[in-house]
């Protein structure tokens, strides 16, 4: 879309996101039914979930604690007392005819989520974080429509940004940052495929330099990270073309159709519903008490962005490595634990680089919790490399054996006699034998074919089963070849 890139030199997109985050609660927001994914339709229900006459909601305090974690982590203002409100609309997947949400008294206001964009640290400001319950799901089979209420009543919090984002890339990066934060804090699983993180986007464009916001549209049903980017980029392009053609953007809600890669109008401004909000009389005001706040604050972990910066500062990691290693909290914990076990900050960088290459390759997409080698065991291995007991190449073999058997690095090295040959006299002898065995190549080298040094190193490694100290071997070979 290079023509869009050109157009965006004169048009500025303005984007705000409303993201529903499913909270990692065992039971529903207002009743005891479980919240598991993939259960048979309508099996996770009870009188409250079904909206049966006479049933009442009681609030799941765990949901409050999780939402507070997100509020504290984003530096939001927390209301000591907030209220639930009823949001009314008729739809078959909404059993009571209203959703229990929050309206004029949300749990959290302001605050922000920090992220890195193209090497620049940016804070996306939040408007609010509020608690609410999910609706069920309508399934359409030919002419029949079926309703599954397993998801109805699942606890959510809605995280609403200010219009602080200015490109589809930024919006996608914000989603990744929120996803990371939610998982980091244990607030939710954040699996977009399972609908645990759902994004609605408010998009408008304006001429660069203009202060006033353009007319915005709301995009719904964006349910993967890839679609966040695609849907928003598509909407920006649509609006810019309308405005370039002298038209006007209509205030409307549009539904993103991922299969077709386009958005369709869902309802226009005139049809925008009146939700008739009012405080839910079944639920007393929600009070955030001291012990709960204390628990949330005292168990708050170091957050992803400060941790990334610490990895760069303390461990000397390059940005990309630090970013990868703080992509989830378990990875970052693994590194910190390994460095602590090594007892030497200088090993942080080789440990990190071994994690990013060998360990991630072995894990093949699985979470680090599945790592076959514990942090301290990895530290032991890297210390052997750093101490020149084994070479980096042998380290990979040792690592493979550690993965397979669970044995320690030192033990494997000793048992399999993998110690690097670093004794100069021994190595020199081996090199002299080698040169004597390959007189033709020695002659060619001396005639100026420098590239043959590699050949000699290779032959030496072959002869020693890879145990020759590579640096020392190279130095000795060079000396012997040069001498004459």
């Amino acid at each position, binding site marked *: 879309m290079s023509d869009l890139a050109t157009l965006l030199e004169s048009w500025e997109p303005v984007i705000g996101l409303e993201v529903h985050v499913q909270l990692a609660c065992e039971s529903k927001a207002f009743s005891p039914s479980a919240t598991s994914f993939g259960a048979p339709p309508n099996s996770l229900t009870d*009188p409250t979930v*079904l*909206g*049966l*006459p*006479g*049933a*009442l*909601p*009681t*609030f799941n305090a765990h949901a409050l604690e999780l939402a507070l974690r997100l509020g504290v982590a984003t530096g939001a203002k927390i209301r000591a007392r907030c209220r639930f409100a*009823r949001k*009314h609309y*008729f739809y*078959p997947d909404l*059993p*009571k*005819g*209203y959703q229990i949400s929050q309206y004029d008294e949300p749990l959290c206001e302001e605050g922000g989520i920090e992220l890195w964009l193209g090497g620049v640290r940016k804070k996306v400001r939040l408007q609010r974080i509020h608690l609410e319950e999910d609706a069920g799901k309508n399934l359409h089979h030919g002419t029949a429509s079926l*309703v599954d209420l397993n998801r109805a009543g699942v606890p959510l919090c809605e995280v609403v940004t200010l219009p602080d984002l200015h490109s589809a890339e930024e919006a996608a990066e914000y989603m990744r940052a929120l996803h990371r934060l939610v998982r980091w804090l244990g607030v939710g699983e954040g699996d977009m495929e399972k609908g645990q993180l759902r994004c609605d986007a408010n998009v408008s464009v304006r001429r660069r330099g203009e202060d006033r916001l353009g007319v915005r549209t709301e995009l719904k049903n964006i349910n993967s990270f890839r679609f966040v980017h695609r849907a928003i980029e598509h909407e920006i392009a649509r609006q810019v073309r309308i405005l370039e053609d002298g038209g006007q953007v209509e205030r409307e809600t549009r539904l993103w159709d991922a299969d077709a890669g386009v958005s369709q109008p869902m309802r226009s401004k005139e049809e925008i519903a*009146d*939700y*008739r*909000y*009012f405080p839910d*009389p*079944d*639920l*007393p005001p929600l009070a955030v008490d001291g012990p709960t706040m204390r628990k949330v604050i005292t168990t708050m972990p170091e957050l992803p962005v400060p941790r990334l910066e610490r990895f760069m500062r303390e461990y000397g990691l390059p940005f990309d490595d630090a970013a990868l290693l703080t992509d989830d909290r378990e990875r970052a914990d693994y590194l910190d634990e390994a460095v602590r076990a090594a007892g030497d900050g200088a090993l942080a960088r080789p440990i990190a680089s071994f994690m990013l290459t060998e360990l991630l390759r072995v894990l093949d997409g699985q979470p680090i919790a599945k790592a076959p080698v514990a942090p301290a065991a990895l530290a032991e291995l890297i210390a052997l490399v750093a101490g020149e007991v084994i070479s980096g190449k042998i380290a990979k073999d040792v690592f493979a054996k550690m993965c397979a058997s669970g044995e320690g690095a030192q033990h494997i090295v000793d048992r399999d006699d993998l110690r690097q040959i670093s004794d100069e006299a021994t190595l020199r002898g081996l090199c002299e034998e080698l040169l004597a065995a390959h007189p033709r190549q020695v002659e060619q080298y001396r005639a100026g074919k420098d590239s043959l040094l590699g050949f000699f190193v290779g032959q030496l490694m072959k002869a020693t089963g890879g145990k020759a100290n590579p640096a020392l071997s190279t130095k000795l070979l060079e000396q012997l070849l040069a001498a004459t």
Partner: protein
Amino acid sequence: MSAELAYAGAAELARRVRAREVSAVELTDAFLARIDAHDGALGAYLAVDHEGARNRALIVDAMIAAGQDPGPLAGVPVGVKDVIVTEGLVTTAASRILDGWVPPYDATAVARLRAAGAIVLGKLNCDEFAMGSSNERSGYRPCQNPWDLGRVPGGSSGGSAAAVAAGLAAATLGTDTGGSIRQPAAFCGVVGLKPTYGRVSRWGAIAFASSLDQIGPLAGSVEDCALLLEVIAGADPRDATSIDQPAPSLRPALTAGVAGLKVGLPREYFEGALDPEVAAAVRAAGDALVTAGAELREVTLPHTRFALPAYYVVAPAEAASNLARYDGVRFGHRGGGRELAEMYATTRAEGFGPEVKRRIMIGTYALRAGHYEAYYRKAQQVRALIKRDFDQAFEEVDVLLTPTTPTAAFARGEKAAPLDMYLADVFTLACNLAGIPGLAVPVGATASGLPIGAQLLGRALDEVTLVRAGAELERAFGTRRPPAYEGAA
């Protein structure tokens, strides 16, 4: 059976069952026979559970035979207003929209009655979704007043009051949102107790107006109301608005007397369209309390006249929201239609009666964007003032004595205009808005023989004082039974 048994009362019947003077099955059969004989003309019941009641009675008798105590309501046959859900027993809230709906669970109050040994005979008639003051708004059939079949039993808990008065249940449960226990109790000459808001769990009470609704007992005596409330009251984790207090001990107050009790007569409750016979009876009730050692004082509740308009914003607003779930999707009546919106429209048009529709319209209007501040929030502010009125009065007096209703039971069809009907609750609404408890007690009759009820209003959570003063009035005025039923088998 003998009418003596039908009017012996819950406490006395439980005593006899526990003493093996009568079996629970005998009692249950006797009440069922009375219902079969008399309810056709009266209309107190919407559903009678012959089989379920007998089975439950067998269990109670078996427990007694095994030497176990079935509880303080052992074998007592009770009726339950149809807005309170009963597991396995059809519950409609007297609305066609819930035609044939069988709840999969018991209301907490019903579960507690059963756990105390009570036998649920059936479901009692009422105005649809408890919206009405005459029981004429039942979606099925009207209920009549046992004192005069041409008159209404009051509402919305008309069936609950009529069943007690006619000896078709030893005691009943009703609900009170703006007077729906007290007003029919007064019209039928029985005792009705609306507990403090939050005293009795609302779990299983089909919501009309959630911030006002309370379940409470109706019975032939103050003692029986006290006994039932002791059983059904107390915190419930399934109702977030239930008060975290154990059930109160009320029966000791029955014999405490009223010596030194300060009784207030709120001036505003004796003005306007108050029937002179009712006014005289209530003043006589005050005199009786003075004779028994109480002290009488006039007090003022200056915001009383705003109670009715505030109520008719709050209650319909909450009702419109609470009734949104009746959409034909999951239970109850479903109307036809080619698409979703049409199905919703026909379901609700066919299922709801005119009074319910009227209140949904009022409530929806009041909650519209931009209207909330002017209506619902304003009404809540008025509510705070009404509550403050009561708080100030209760600094001077321990209990308030008022008429329950402006007149005795009115004739069927007499109050055709909605506003006339709403005015029948003018003395009972403020109590719900303030969340305080109220007790209606018979204090004599009109010249034509219709019962008159006095209303006692107390401090929040102070049902004890209501029982104390109510028992005194009962001693002074006695209890009367409708002759047509008292004399019948």
